[in-house]
């Protein structure tokens, strides 16, 4: 990697911005292929039981209704559970849409009506007659804690928590203690774009599938396995995604339905879900947590106990790392961790931005605040005293860790030293002012990703990989990295993604896309550079005759000799001399089995520290988050502009979790009752005030060649807890059940 940076680290505006603003960026439900049919999903009104009768005669009689699909007439596709398992499926038996008469959860899809127009399909859905036999359902997590069990390792990335030392002894050694129960309700991702699949029937079971997803290959392999289609038959395309937050990590049921209907009717079919139906699949699980901490006289932690029980469905063990982070983030010899699941009559939960860590950090970071108060220490000072310089959980050194800088720079920017510790001691006029803090840790991961780089005879570089851009800025940063690597102006570079005909790339999740695809872009460009050098050497060009790849550099559209920068050759001339329309190189970072089994040498993580100011009306108890500083250590930041947007979004979501967001279940019906944007509250502009994002300098040559750690998730951590802690500081009220709505403060 060249040290000169023309593009990497620069606040480049989104290269896909104009397409989005002009409306030329098309989303899954916007591909108006010819002769399209429209599907509308009918959802179950009950949470558990059986369909006893379906009378579709009236619906079928409507002119323009093509078919009514239910479990009674959907053909049996793949037999085995494993055919329905996608890349991130948890252990268990995946849900099969329209498979049998059994109702497993409220809002379960029970029928698909396909008609000539969307409006007709929707109307038909409203008059389809279905009878049910209801069975008693269980949706209340608090009633099923005793039955909770330790899940197996079913889900990729799940690490069963490991205790160390002896918490009982650590608790006894402590001179100050805290203990508390924490809880938060289910949350649904609710990206702006609702789930939709437009399946274009090309004849002979050949399909173009425009899908809302965070990974085209995941959708493709699901369709391949379930319907027995080859890769050629099922091309999945997703160029733009209107938000994901994890909801697009698994193929949602509209994909099954649209493909099924297309194959059955031999027509192009679109199925799009309604906002209400966005509450009919995965969600962040309701989680109950218990945390106990003890400290010695000097404020060092002598014991930590973190236990969580989360909901899952009756058919899958959805697991996430809720408590494991507690054993890493702070230095402590005696750590007891536990994580259990309880089965309820709901759909399986699903990864949602910083899955597990977001939930765990709420409990841990409120508990750390409580502990700081019990130990008589400033919450920041308390964290610094328990700073982890070595990952005790993995018994590994950190590849890099600039959390101290986050604390220092964040606190300085916020003005933390002006804080008076006593709750209720700070005022702004009549308003109570509270300052709170928190923070978190997230994995710096990297997955195999294949990237192709192709330079045409006009000197335009096209770099491609079948990754996704869920609004994170993938298009932009990959363009920057490629432009940097090939020494081309950014206008001469196009990054192409979101198509299964492109080289294979992992799902966009886990904050790993920048590192996984980005490093592979560099490698692909390096390989292209080597090919260009070889071609140049074939030309009548004495300059490069004996040059090795390390002897040349790519600058201003030219290849130049490092020893004599005046000697250069224009890249497009090399391509033109090759006689081919373009020159290409591909990089595959697929790891061998041996490499995958190699134990890691370093603990690789991103960190953050968040400082929050709230103002609370002392009579009405209304809360406003007036100021947030979020300092993030996430290795090299490729684009401070798109990265900042990611962290801004995280902060907004953290405020949302703290103050308003919850899917409210009426247990009598086993149904989420606020299943729409009007009543499922997330912040509006008027709720959001000053947010400062700091990226502290963190150089890491071990995590990956580009030194990237990923910023999609880390920014969310600790935000909700910091808001809760600030509310405590303002009011003296410790609320451990989120969201902290007005009724909990009155």
């Amino acid at each position, binding site marked *: 990697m060249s040290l000169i940076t023309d593009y990497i680290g620069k606040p480049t505006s989104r290269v896909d911005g104009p397409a989005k603003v002009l409306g030329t960026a098309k989303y899954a439900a916007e591909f108006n292929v010819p002769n399209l049919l429209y599907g509308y999903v009918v959802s179950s009104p009950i949470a558990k039981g059986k369909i006893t009768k379906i009378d579709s005669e009236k619906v079928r009689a409507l002119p323009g209704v093509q078919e009514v699909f239910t479990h009674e007439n959907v053909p049996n596709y793949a037999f085995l559970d494993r055919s329905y398992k996608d890349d991130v499926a948890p252990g268990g038996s995946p849900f099969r849409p329209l498979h049998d008469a059994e109702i497993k959860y409220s809002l379960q899809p029970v029928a698909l009506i396909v008609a000539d127009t969307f409006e007709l399909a*929707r*109307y038909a859905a409203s008059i389809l007659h279905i009878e049910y036999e209801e069975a008693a359902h269980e949706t209340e997590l608090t009633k099923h804690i005793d039955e909770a069990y330790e899940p197996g390792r079913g889900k990729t990335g799940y690490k069963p928590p490991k205790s160390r030392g002896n918490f009982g002894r650590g608790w006894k050694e402590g001179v100050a203690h805290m203990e508390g129960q924490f809880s938060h309700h289910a949350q649904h991702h609710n990206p702006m774009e609702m789930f939709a699949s437009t399946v274009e029937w090309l004849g002979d079971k050949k399909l173009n599938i425009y899908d809302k997803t965070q990974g085209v290959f995941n959708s493709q392999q699901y369709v391949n396995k379930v319907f027995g289609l080859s890769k050629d038959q099922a091309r999945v395309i997703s160029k733009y995604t209107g938000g994901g937050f994890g909801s697009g990590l698994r193929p949602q049921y509209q994909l099954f339905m649209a493909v099924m209907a297309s194959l059955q009717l031999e027509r192009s079919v679109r199925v799009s879900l309604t906002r209400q139906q966005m509450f009919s699949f995965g969600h962040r699980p309701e989680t109950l947590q218990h945390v106990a901490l003890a400290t010695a006289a000097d404020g060092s932690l002598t014991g930590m106990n973190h236990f969580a029980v989360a909901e899952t469905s009756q058919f899958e063990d959805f697991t996430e790392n809720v408590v494991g982070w507690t054993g890493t983030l702070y230095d402590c010899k005696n750590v007891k961790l536990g994580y259990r699941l309880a089965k309820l009559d709901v759909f399986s939960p699903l990864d949602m931005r910083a899955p597990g860590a977001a939930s765990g950090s709420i409990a841990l970071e409120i508990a750390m605040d409580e502990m700081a108060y019990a130990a008589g220490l400033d919450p920041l000072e308390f964290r610094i005293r328990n700073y982890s310089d070595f990952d005790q959980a993995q018994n590994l050194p950190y590849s890099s860790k600039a959390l101290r800088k986050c604390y220092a720079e964040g606190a300085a920017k916020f003005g933390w030293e002006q804080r008076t510790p006593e709750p209720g001691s700070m005022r702004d006029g009549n308003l109570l002012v509270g300052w709170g803090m928190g923070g978190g840790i997230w994995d710096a991961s990297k997955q195999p990703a294949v990237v192709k780089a192709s330079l045409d005879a006009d000197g335009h570089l096209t770099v491609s990989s079948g990754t996704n851009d869920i609004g994170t800025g993938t298009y932009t940063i990959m363009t920057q990295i490629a432009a940097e690597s090939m020494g081309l102006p950014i206008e001469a570079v196009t990054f192409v993604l979101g198509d299964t005909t492109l080289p294979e790339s992992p799902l966009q999740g886990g904050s790993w896309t920048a590192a996984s695809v980005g490093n592979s872009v560099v490698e692909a460009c390096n390989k292209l550079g080597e090919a260009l050098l070889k071609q140049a050497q074939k030309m009548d060009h004495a300059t490069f005759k004996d040059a090795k790849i390390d002897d040349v550099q790519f600058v201003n559209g030219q290849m130049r000799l490092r020893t004599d920068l005046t000697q250069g050759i224009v890249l497009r001339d090399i391509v033109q001399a090759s006689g081919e329309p373009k020159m290409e190189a591909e990089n595959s970072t697929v790891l061998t089995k041996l490499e995958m089994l190699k134990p890691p040498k370093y603990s690789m993580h991103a960190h953050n520290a968040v400082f929050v100011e709230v103002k609370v009306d002392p009579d*009405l108890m209304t809360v*406003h988050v007036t100021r947030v500083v979020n300092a993030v250590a996430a290795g090299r930041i490729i684009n401070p502009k798109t990265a900042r947007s990611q962290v801004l979004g995280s902060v907004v979501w953290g405020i949302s979790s703290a103050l308003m967001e919850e899917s409210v279940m*009426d247990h009598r019906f086993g149904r989420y009752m606020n299943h729409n944007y*009007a009543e499922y509250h997330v912040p509006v*502009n008027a709720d959001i005030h000053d947010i400062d994002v700091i990226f502290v300098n963190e150089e890491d040559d071990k995590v990956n060649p580009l030194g990237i750690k990923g910023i999609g998730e880390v920014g969310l951590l600790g935000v909700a807890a910091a808001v809760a802690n600030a509310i405590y500081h303002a009011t003296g009220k410790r609320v451990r059940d989120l969201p902290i709505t*007005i009724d909990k403060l*009155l």
Partner: protein
Amino acid sequence: MNSFTFTQATAVEAAVQDKAAHEGAAYIGGGTNLIDLMKENVARPTHLIGLKNLGLDNIENTPDGGLRLGALATNADTAYHPEVEKRYPLLNQAILAGASPQLRNMATDGGNLMQRTRCYYFYDLATPCNKREPGSGCSAIGGYTRVHAILGTSEQCIATHPSDMCVALAALDATVRVSGPNGERTIAFEDFHRLPGNTPERDNNLEPGELITGLDLPAKGFEKNFSYLKLRDRTSYAFALVSVAATLELDGTTIKDARLALGGVAHKPWRDKAAEALLIGQPATADTFRRAAAKVLEGAKGQGTNNFKIELAKRAIVRALKQATEMNQALDATAFQNSNP
């Protein structure tokens, strides 16, 4: 959503006749609520009668010194009308506390009165609802009742009327002008909306086929001392947990006249004249306000998850009256609640 026919009416009489001629017909103004209800299959009109071309979108002074709001004037045009801003600032504040700019640009003043409850169970066909389907039962009772009533409820229904504008109209003693098959009449605002009783399916006292043509505001606008305080789960685009319209006429520190109306607490905008009587003639102090607040909430009944609204409403009344009293003094930071149009 079912199929429907549509007529754009150009005269009030024709609209009324059109309605009488079609069973299952509905008038449509801005459609900001009706279209939602149709998409949810809660409302299934077979015929819609558009009102936008009736020429009822004027706002004009009346000979008695009041102001007439055409039923088809939009909420946005009403809120920002110079006469409303100057003489009825309470109405301006209340309208701007509701919905979003986009919705207020579409929503009409007559339609604002006609919007239906935001009860979660009313909107969800999977759950029984007496308002949607008389006799099927009330799912909200014993359920999630955050947006539900604490005053004037019945065994049949605990829904609230969701409007902000109507709370101000109740406080201002507006009059509703209607036309129907039997001609024109006026309805006092407090008699327009109903309590649920045993007929929760009826939101108001309009007779079948009647159409709102306008709203009359009396001359007295309480432009000197007023407050519209709305408490909700986020700062904008959320229905009120509790809202208070408070107006005062002061003689020094003595209250000469007062109006008090609440939103988010009952099936109709909740005006309490007994509480107003406790204010009139009294000094404008916190004690006076607290007595009035206690009076308003005297018969309040929580439904479990909305018990907190009783205490919240008391505090909101005291705060709103205080804000109305201290109008001309420097606004304190409680302006948060009212600062967001």
